[in-house]
């Protein structure tokens, strides 16, 4: 599994270099206030509409191109899922889950004294495999549909 992952990483790096310098730009804050539209909007008087019957020649228009899709050449669905939900993401979740749970236990001591049989008392720190199993349960619960009171 590890060896395969390394090969995969190399392949991915190649694809990344080709185009789309995504690494820096996608991490930037998506705050709309930074965009200034004033320049764009100031010249709105300049539109001079005319009725035509000819087709306008768009000389700059690029030729049609197809999507480029990465070929993994694998038969195991999990390999494809791992492209999206990589180990990086799963370790992020397990790390943050542990932090939140420990904070919760420290800050809610009164609550836990009041309810000594609470589930929270059984908390043990999780690892990546626990999070993977949780996601598996989420997926299976989506597939397996049981009738409910609304009849849907």
């Amino acid at each position: 599994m590890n060896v395969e992952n390394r090969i995969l990483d190399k392949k991915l790096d190649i694809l990344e270099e080709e185009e789309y310098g995504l690494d820096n730009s996608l991490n930037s804050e998506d705050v709309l206030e930074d965009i200034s539209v004033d320049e764009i909007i100031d010249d709105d008087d300049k539109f001079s509409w005319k009725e035509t019957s000819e087709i306008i020649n768009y000389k700059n228009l690029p030729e049609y191109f197809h999507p480029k899709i990465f070929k993994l050449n694998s038969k195991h669905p999990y390999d494809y899922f791992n492209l999206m939900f990589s180990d990086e993401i799963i370790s992020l979740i397990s790390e943050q889950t542990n932090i939140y749970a420990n904070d919760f236990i420290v800050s809610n001591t009164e609550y836990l004294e009041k309810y000594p049989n609470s589930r929270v008392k059984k908390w043990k720190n999780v690892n990546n495999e626990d999070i993977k199993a949780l996601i598996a349960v989420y997926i299976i619960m989506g597939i397996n549909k049981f009738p409910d009171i609304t009849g849907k």
Partner: protein
Amino acid sequence: MGSDISNIMTLNKFHILNKFLHLADNKLQGENKTDKFKNFYSILKRNWNKVFKPGQYLTLDEGIAAFQGRSEFKQYMPAKPEKWGLKVYLLADSNTDYILSAKLYRGKSEATSNYTVKLVINILENFMWKGHIVFMDSFYCCPILTRHLYFKDTYVTGMTRGHRLGMPKEILKDLNLEKNELKTFSVDYFHLDAFKDKKKLLLIITSAYSNEIKTSISLKPESLVKYNEYMNSVDKANQKNSYYRFPHKNRKWWKVMFFELLEISISNSYIIYKNDGNKLSHKEYRLEIATSLIKNYKTKESLNYILLDSKKQHYIGYIPQKLKRLCKYCKQSKTIWMCQHCTKKKKVVLLVFV
């Protein structure tokens, strides 16, 4: 597989994991509420775009993630089947329905003047200068935006409304169209198609389509045919996501976003899986993912307990594919019931209800 959920983890363990699932440290949060899933999303979005480079046609539209808890981001849309929810702007590749980016609508405070222009520029930030043609509906598309995108080598085909900034309002006032009549107006950089079938439609276009009115089912100009063909790819992607969605309600808005992003990732990965020539259906694909996710998971507490217990006790279940077999005890009548654990050791026990 359904009965096997109890074999993966106990109910207590599921509840406690589900309760504490978290994506960001609360102590490090700033004023921005979207910090709750910001790091998680930026890694995910990078992964989506690593393995897929979109074709020329892109579609921009919105989707709704159903949500009924309390949040300032919650929207009410009476016309939709899911009336309450989070509004998410989605950019998709039109040919494959692969989703390239998602953006949460953060309520009224975000919607200042010229909101949609800012929004589209922000969403398309990483897709400028590549010669894409973007399909949009009348919520986004207007002449100012079209001109701005034109100078960044990005082109537009979109429905628009008469009162938008930069539209020829005086011309449109006097415009009387007969049925199936097409009139085009042009500016230096793009043109406007006005067409009437039952309603007057206005389309802004920056790409060369022919002026002829084509006959497919009904009479339409080519621009409208293209618009109808490619505009629905976000809706199709949303439809695919809705089939096997985790069915539970949630009170926390960022968990709803987490499930939304999980769904998008799975269906995105399924598109790449299909492109390699594999043939599993969507449902089987999800099952395979789930089974390999729990491969290394040690189910000490739950699984071993059941296996030990099964030596003393039998568990009733159907025979696979409901094939009938002889009852072990009476040896006369046939039955579809048997013990599920006994089959693994090839000691078949069948039961009959008399």
